[in-house]
């Protein structure tokens, strides 16, 4: 009997577009944890841009599509707290009044997890085979932290990475200023927020900053690189999977002499 759970990887738009290495790192981590990973081909976006822009009808339709696509799997795993929060928390809200879909949405939501919390809480992974020499700090992305209560899980696994020294930055739980379309609608406020984040990262003395959401990571990396910082920015999955071949976010890989 095959007991390995059948897991659908919901890649997310940003990972699909900008950083496939996060997706492959997620696959590696899931397979190591004993999962059988599939990538449903018809997946697109979780619908969050529509949901947070007030277009409830489009968000609801996208929720229905995603639920139908993902319901055959034992689990749905998402390398993003924000998109996982959409599936887990907001789909049941969006479809809660729809007699045909309410139960289906709830059933998928219950089986949907952010990657690192899935590894720790569901698959009971206790350590990872990975090496990273240096000081690392972790930013708690808002949706993962507040909607899904992800806080200790990434830290717990990071502590088992060989050579890695985890240091806490000040206000690690304060928003980095990304906020989806917020960062382009209110660039000045967003920049102020990310500047405070950058200052906290600098004060921590870490050479690498990690988080579980590519939106936040691109925002922090974009500002760090514009300011000429050498701090490396990576998705936590890459470090946990030991997949560090790809240049860090916003770097070309030709920087090292």
């Amino acid at each position, binding site marked *: 009997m095959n007991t390995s759970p059948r897991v659908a990887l919901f890649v997310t738009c940003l990972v699909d*577009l900008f950083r*496939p*290495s996060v997706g492959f790192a997620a696959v590696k981590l899931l397979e190591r944890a004993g999962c059988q990973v599939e990538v449903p081909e018809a997946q697109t*976006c979780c619908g969050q841009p529509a949901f*947070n822009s007030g277009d409830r009808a489009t968000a609801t339709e996208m929720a229905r599509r995603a639920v139908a696509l993902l319901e055959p799997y034992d689990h749905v795993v998402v390398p993003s707290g924000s998109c996982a929060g959409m599936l887990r928390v907001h789909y049941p809200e969006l479809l809660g009044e729809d007699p045909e879909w309410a139960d289906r949405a709830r059933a998928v939501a219950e089986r949907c997890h952010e990657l690192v919390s899935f590894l720790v809480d569901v698959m009971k992974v206790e350590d990872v085979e990975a090496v990273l020499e240096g000081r690392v700090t972790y930013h708690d992305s808002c*949706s993962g932290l*507040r909607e899904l209560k992800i806080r200790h899980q990434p830290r717990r696994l990071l502590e088992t990475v060989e050579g890695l020294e985890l240091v806490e930055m000040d206000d690690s739980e304060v928003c980095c200023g990304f906020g989806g379309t917020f960062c382009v609608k209110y660039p000045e406020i967003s920049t102020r927020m990310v500047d405070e984040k950058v200052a906290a990262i600098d004060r921590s003395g870490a050479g690498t900053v990690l988080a579980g959401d590519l939106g936040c990571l691109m925002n922090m990396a*974009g500002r760090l690189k514009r300011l000429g910082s050498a701090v490396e920015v990576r998705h936590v999955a890459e470090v946990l999977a030991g997949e560090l071949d790809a240049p860090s976010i916003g770097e070309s*890989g030709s920087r090292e002499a």
Partner: protein
Amino acid sequence: MQPTSHAFKQNAHEALENPVLQEALGGIRTGWQAARGRAAGALPEFEQLRDTGRDIKNHVLAHLDLYLEAFTAKVEEAGGKVHWARDAAEARTIVLELCREADARTVTKSKSMIAEEIGLNPWLEANDVKPVETDLGEYIIQLAGQPPSHLVGPAVHMTKDEVSDLFHKHHGGERLEEGGALVGEARRVLRQRYLEADVGITGANFLVAETGSIITVTNEGNAELTQGLPRTHICITSIEKIVPTMEDAFTLLRLLARSATGQEFSAYTTVMTGPKREEDLDGPREFHLVLLDNGRSKMVGSAFQEMLRCIRCGACMNHCPVYLAAGGHAYGWVYVGPMGSVLTPQFVGIEEAHPLPNASTFCGRCEEVCPVRIPLPKLMRHWREEQFNRQLNPPAARYGLALWGFVARRPRLYRLATGMAVGAMRLLGGRQGRMRRLPLAGGWTGTRDMPAPQGPTFMQAWKKRRGAGS
């Protein structure tokens, strides 16, 4: 007050450029924010208390008519007079009439957001009644001719140095610099005003249905002097402040002080029931209660009902990174921060207040600290839905969203589009790993580089890898 909420972005720009304001806002983080964390952490039942607070308010809102009847009957039984005000104009008229009946030339006022909401001070001034604010922060902004920038600390946007200048200008004499000396001077000036006032106007933090009492909370004792010394006391308040019992009020008071300032209890909590009785040593001879609706009864049963749980503690703004960057005045009306982003559109219209519900990253810290668990991000999202449904958002944003929605609902088209987008972005910045400029993304690239895509999309790479037989 003429709202400037539509200009939030420009207001915030000016705030960000103002180093004095930024210094003042920085104090909130180390002050109230930290204090709230300590106070909440020190009380083991704090989270349970929040549930209880939410439930008390929900219960009242479900039976608001009954509790209002019970409360007002008790007020009149105690010798008070109740005045119902449908809107701001009615409330202003009632207060002015009462002032005229009392032949009032000056009135003292303790802090009242309802008075701000109805624009009471300018109205009284225009009608030859001189209002004197007695809360230190309110007194400061009254001298400065500014609206409040925070629920609890109306002058939190000002530094001590600015207050020194202001007092020097208005009080004359030596320019005082030390905090204690400034407070002492304000106290001296205000003592005289308390004695001169013909009418005292207060707000109320809670209205207790079982006794007909009003409860005020201060740290300065000014509400007590405002309501106790003049012949007439007018309490101006709104319908959602009702709680069923005294015990309920004290449950909420425990939440209020901790959430607002990190105190276990505010320095002065006063329960006042009706005017002075025969046997009382002091108190006002007349007590009037003005109960304002101003659209609140319409919020009951609407998507925004939960906002009526708000107890005006200010924790949401103290923890909001947008408020802490932009300051209260940027919000352009009486209510500021996350609670203001939900309430202001109710009062001034979403057309005027359109930026406010959008000026949030939905980081959720406001909801995380709200003592009565108001889902502020959800309520801001409701406003965004209202804007979308009424086509109030800019056409470019609407068409962009519609195009994106069209593509994202068609997986094959989506694959094609994402593949093309990645190709284009790699042409623009692939070699450096990032782009300094990107068409249509100036909001991002003005201050940030845009990391370039790694290569083909994940879906393309996955298909290839799978095709290769892995």
